[in-house]
């Protein structure tokens, strides 16, 4: 599982001086946790046991709620409430045994032990019907351990990420994965498929653009396999955002060859043009209870971030720095955007992510280097996912905004083009 390399990029006081930010829910005490697997497992079970351990370590680190010991210990007696290691340091001990079944399923029995009092906190069994789904099994264990210490929820770790993966010219597949890219499954294959966007909070369906005679928007249900055509457009078509209730889409379309932003009503199947500019208007995001949009436009001669109330023609410039601010994501009053601040168009310091507040002059740089693109807020606003291209490698990045930490999960092959979670 070498590809689950978690890099700690930077630890800086990103939000330390922002008086407008919500209060960070910090734990008063960060508990230490050690992990032990059962000894003498079969080769196959041992293989998955090691993989589960690496995912668990990553989850605990990314949560920001644990001081995790990277080393994997071992035990022989599952019932014992103490560690065999006399030098073990920590507050919590997670013991687990992995069982592989002939039908391909995986079973893990896990116990969480309070080492301070040698008491059992929980004992649970977890299973997946196919062993390659083990990352979700590990994420579920991490979520339960996190719940046990009453830390802020990390249930987002159990969610699917959806992204388009470049195969070759004019060919991209849509792939779902866990947030570490350890589990991956191609769900739309063949042809050119881009811009996947979850249809609503349930994440059972997503919208995506498929290039047929014209770029065409489809809605695909992960569970039923239903693939419903929604609308088509000349030139380009992307679903940039979905309203809170899932009934309205912000689409970038070009029915007359000009890329502009439209609101599309899912129920009435009608569209209404929001922006009207002869250059580029793109990447709309709902803000302010879905009454306003934040978007990217080149109306000042270079791409920058603007806001407009739906139904009005007035446009407000939101960002006053950077020479090429070409993508954005919004959560409540906060906007994260991509910016190229170097004079050299292909310099090493190429595209970085910044966060601003619409209610103050707060601004913070979130990434230190590389080509960082396609930022997307999580549904709870506590994390930002993005695509990072650095030294010819594509990776999924996660910024935990309330914990001042950032992690990268490299894609083994191919290139991530667009992403949502």
């Amino acid at each position, binding site marked *: 599982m070498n590809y689950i390399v978690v890099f700690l990029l930077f630890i800086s006081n990103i939000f330390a001086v922002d008086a407008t930010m919500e209060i960070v829910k910090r734990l008063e005490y960060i508990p230490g946790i050690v992990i032990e697997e059962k000894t003498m497992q079969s080769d196959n079970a041992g293989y998955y046991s090691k993989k589960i351990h690496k995912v668990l370590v990553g989850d605990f680190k990314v949560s920001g709620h644990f001081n995790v010991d990277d080393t994997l210990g071992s035990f022989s007696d599952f019932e014992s409430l103490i560690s065999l290691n006399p030098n073990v340091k920590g507050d919590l001990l997670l013991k687990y045994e992995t069982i592989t079944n002939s039908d391909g399923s995986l079973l893990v029995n896990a116990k969480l032990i309070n080492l301070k009092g040698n008491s059992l906190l929980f004992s649970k069994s977890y299973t997946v019907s196919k062993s390659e789904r083990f990352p979700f099994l590990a994420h579920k264990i991490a979520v339960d351990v996190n719940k046990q210490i009453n830390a802020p929820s990390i249930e987002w770790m159990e969610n699917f990420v959806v992204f388009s993966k*470049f195969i070759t*010219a*004019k060919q*991209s597949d849509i792939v779902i994965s866990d947030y570490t890219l350890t589990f991956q499954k191609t769900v739309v294959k063949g042809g*050119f498929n*881009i*811009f996947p966007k979850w249809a609503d909070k349930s994440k059972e369906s997503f919208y995506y653009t498929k*290039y047929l005679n*014209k*770029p065409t928007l489809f809605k695909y249900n992960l569970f039923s396999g239903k693939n419903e055509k929604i609308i088509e457009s*000349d*030139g*380009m078509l*992307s679903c*940039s955002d979905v309203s809170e209730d899932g009934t309205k889409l912000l689409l*970038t379309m*070009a029915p007359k*060859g*000009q*890329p502009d932003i439209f609101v599309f009503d899912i129920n009435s199947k009608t569209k209404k043009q929001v922006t009207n500019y002869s*250059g*580029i*208007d*793109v*990447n709309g995001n709902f803000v302010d209870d879905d009454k306003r949009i934040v978007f*990217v436009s080149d109306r000042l001669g*270079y*791409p920058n971030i603007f806001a407009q109330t739906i139904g009005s023609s007035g446009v407000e410039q939101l960002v006053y720095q950077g020479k*090429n601010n*070409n*993508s954005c994501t919004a959560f409540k009053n906060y906007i994260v955007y*991509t910016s190229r601040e170097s004079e050299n*168009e*292909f310099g090493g310091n*190429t*595209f970085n992510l910044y966060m601003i507040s619409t209610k103050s002059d707060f601004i913070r740089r979130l990434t230190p280097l590389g*080509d960082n*693109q*396609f930022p997307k807020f999580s549904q709870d606003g506590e994390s930002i996912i993005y*695509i990072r*291209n650095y030294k*010819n490698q594509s990776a999924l990045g996660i910024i935990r905004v309330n914990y001042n930490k950032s992690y990268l999960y490299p894609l083994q092959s191919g*290139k*991530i*083009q*667009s992403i949502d979670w």
Partner: protein
Amino acid sequence: MVKKYTVAIVASAMLLLTGCSQKSDVDASAQKGAESADSKLNQLGAGDGMMKLSDEEMKAQLIKDLEGKVESVYFAFDKYNITDESNSKISANSKLLGEGKAGELKIRIEGNCDEWGTDEYNYALGLKRAKASQDAMIASGTSADRISIVSYGESNPVCTEHNKECWAKNRRADFKLLP
């Protein structure tokens, strides 16, 4: 003396002719009871059918030929304006695609970008490049009804190395033909 030779030659020629005639008569009598094997062969056409292309095949061949001749136009980083050099290429493309049978074909202009930026903006930028090329084609005399545009953003590279020369090749508009 000459007379003797002349008589001898004439006599020999007569013998030869008589001999040939007799052989032909033998063959003809042998064919009377034979079964003909050439009835299907006699039904064959003139033999030029193998060289004949259908209209569709001729159009496909024409499209292939023309796409080998039309020139792509290239753009500066983050720009979609048509340079004088590009305008000359587009005028030549417009002339070429307006001649004879080429004038019956539809034109699809595909806008493309380099790998910098995987965002929607890149697709919009590719679209503006296609649109600028379309406007220049129309200004050069090509009917607007014949032209459609589409953007592939950074997803249709002709060069996959990571250097400036390669990126410059990918910031382009291609002229494709449709039957």
